[in-house]
């Protein structure tokens, strides 16, 4: 059984099952077909995972097949058991909503991601980075500001979102402010920890070169801190998107992903809600992935990336 035959069998089974679903009436035929399809997909993934050569060339294939199998099972179960649309729509319905509402979803993406998330993310991380450098230089800030930072990090987002709406109005600035509050602390702590990451020997070497504080920072301490800083940037990329969406559950203009989710749920348009969730997860992953790629380029010297370069 070569993977190729298995792949063919899986595809044929999937097509046949969906055809039976659309035909309705051949209910008895559906379940064996669906189970056989999923079984073929399972075998195919096992083969691909055990095959070293295939793994090198088609590393993406197993997760892709796995994802497609999940979608297939979801489709068959929701339509086969006739689950009400308002509880769980089939993936095909969600896909249809994605296409039909593309213009609205794009407007939401612009409002939430391009305005709130990017502004809040840059402001939150940027200010935390600068404050971290200041704290690093002055002991009194370290003793005074850090406990306050701890306090701020514990503020519940649903508590500050309405207050930010009062301060900064309904539009994106209030959402960006919520993101700043959410992302500030992880970045501050990670940057500070990163700046502590060099050991005495390395710093002594810089001193014996006669390097100034700024030169030591640029040549030694910041590069050493980079892995920690990137960790915070990655964590904050997901926090920022979540923060923006939750903040939009409060006063908002009538556009944005959070607004869409809260409104369409109440209107029982659950397919649109799922479509928005799909968009949000793709954007979140892309955001995270982008930061990871930048990290690889900038911290290529780090042991965890050496193997990847071969």
């Amino acid at each position, binding site marked *: 059984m070569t993977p190729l035959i298995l792949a063919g069998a899986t595809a044929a089974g999937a097509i046949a099952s969906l055809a039976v679903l659309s035909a309705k009436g051949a209910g008895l035929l559906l379940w064996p077909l669906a189970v056989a399809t999923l079984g073929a997909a399972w075998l195919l993934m096992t083969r691909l995972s055990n095959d070293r050569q295939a793994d090198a060339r088609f590393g993406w294939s197993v997760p892709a097949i796995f994802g497609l199998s999940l979608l297939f099972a979801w489709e068959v179960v929701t339509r086969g058991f006739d689950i009400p649309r*308002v*509880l769980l729509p089939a993936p095909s319905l969600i896909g249809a909503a994605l296409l039909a509402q593309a213009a609205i979803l794009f407007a939401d993406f612009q409002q939430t991601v391009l305005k709130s998330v990017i502004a809040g993310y840059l402001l939150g991380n940027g200010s935390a980075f600068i404050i971290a450098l200041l704290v690093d230089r002055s002991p009194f800030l370290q003793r005074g500001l850090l406990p306050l930072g701890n306090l701020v990090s514990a503020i519940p987002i649903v508590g500050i979102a309405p207050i930010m709406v*009062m301060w900064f109005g309904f539009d994106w600035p209030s959402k960006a402010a919520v993101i700043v509050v959410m992302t500030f602390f992880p970045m501050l702590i990670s940057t500070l920890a990163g700046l502590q990451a060099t050991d005495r020997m390395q710093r002594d070497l810089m001193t014996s070169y006669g390097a100034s504080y700024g030169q030591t920072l640029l040549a030694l301490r910041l590069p050493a801190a980079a892995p920690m800083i990137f960790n915070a940037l990655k964590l904050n990329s997901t926090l920022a998107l979540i923060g923006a969406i939750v903040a939009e559950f409060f*006063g908002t*203009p*009538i556009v944005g992903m959070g607004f869409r989710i809260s*409104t369409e749920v109440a*209107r*029982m348009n659950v397919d649109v809600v799922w479509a928005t969730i799909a968009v949000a997860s793709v954007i979140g992953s892309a955001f995270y992935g982008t930061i990871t790629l930048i990290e690889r380029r900038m911290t290529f010297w780090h042991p965890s990336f050496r193997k990847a370069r071969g």
Partner: protein
Amino acid sequence: MKSLLVSSALVLAAGIATGASAQDKLTLQLKWVTQAQFAGYYVAKDKGFYKEAGLDVTIKAGGPDINPSQVIAGGGADVIVDWMPSALATREKGVDLVNIAQVFQKSGMMLTCRKDSGVTAPKDFPGKTLGVWFGGNEYPFLAWMDKLGYATTGGSGVTVLKQGFNVDPILQKQAACISTMTYNEYWQVIDGGLKDSDLLVFKYEDQGVATLEDGLYTLGKHVKDPAMAAKLAKFVKASMKGWDWAAANSDAAAGIVLDNDASGAQTEKHQKRMMGEIAKLIGSNPKGTGYLDPAAYDRTVAVLMGGKSAPVITKKPEGAWTHEIFDKAK
């Protein structure tokens, strides 16, 4: 050993005795937080009207992002207080909601505007920012804007804000007008420091776009099930008794509501005022409190379907109300 047997037998007997007189459980989901808008139900519970009817009613408070229609669709309640537009829109999406009693005969909804925003009549709305509640409460507003022919996406039409739990947008001039109820938010604006003379009010009733508000809804399958229907009839009867008592003893009813407000957010002054306004909306129907007037239902459907661009409902609902339960409750 013997004493153990005797005592366990006694425990069993006691269990059976209490089991026999157990009350029928029923869960009611409110449309909003605990306040005089729902005084009738709290009165019926506290004065023991439900108990007399053999019911054990759990009252679940709502909130800004809770849509009762959704709660009942998800199985979180047996009966809900909801507005007709939201109930009919949900019905069109495949949830079989049926009106079994209509408590409020009149709509209490209005748009409250600041005079200094330059709004003098609905013709001034374009270009202005208006606050609207969502979560199923946006339908009357959308139907009204549709009737006026204004788009709700900004630009040449009106700019809509999703209004939160409070009336800040009008106090802070973030919006020219906000949605208010005669019995609640309007007074919050007044308490917020604006005077009656600073404000202009557009009642939905006067604009010819009023839709029926607080009514009791349940699922069609409950109405068809004789045991459940009997239980609901008892519930409606006891609830309406509570409403009549609340309307007659407005201040005492406000006190009962305050006793039930776990959040402690409500004030006595505000609740007494609210109860007075609510009593006006219940009116005195010759057929009894809670009677759904079919003509008012038809008017609501006409408003919701009258939309040119985006009607709230697309086809005439069938079987969306019944007098069956109400007549049984007589």
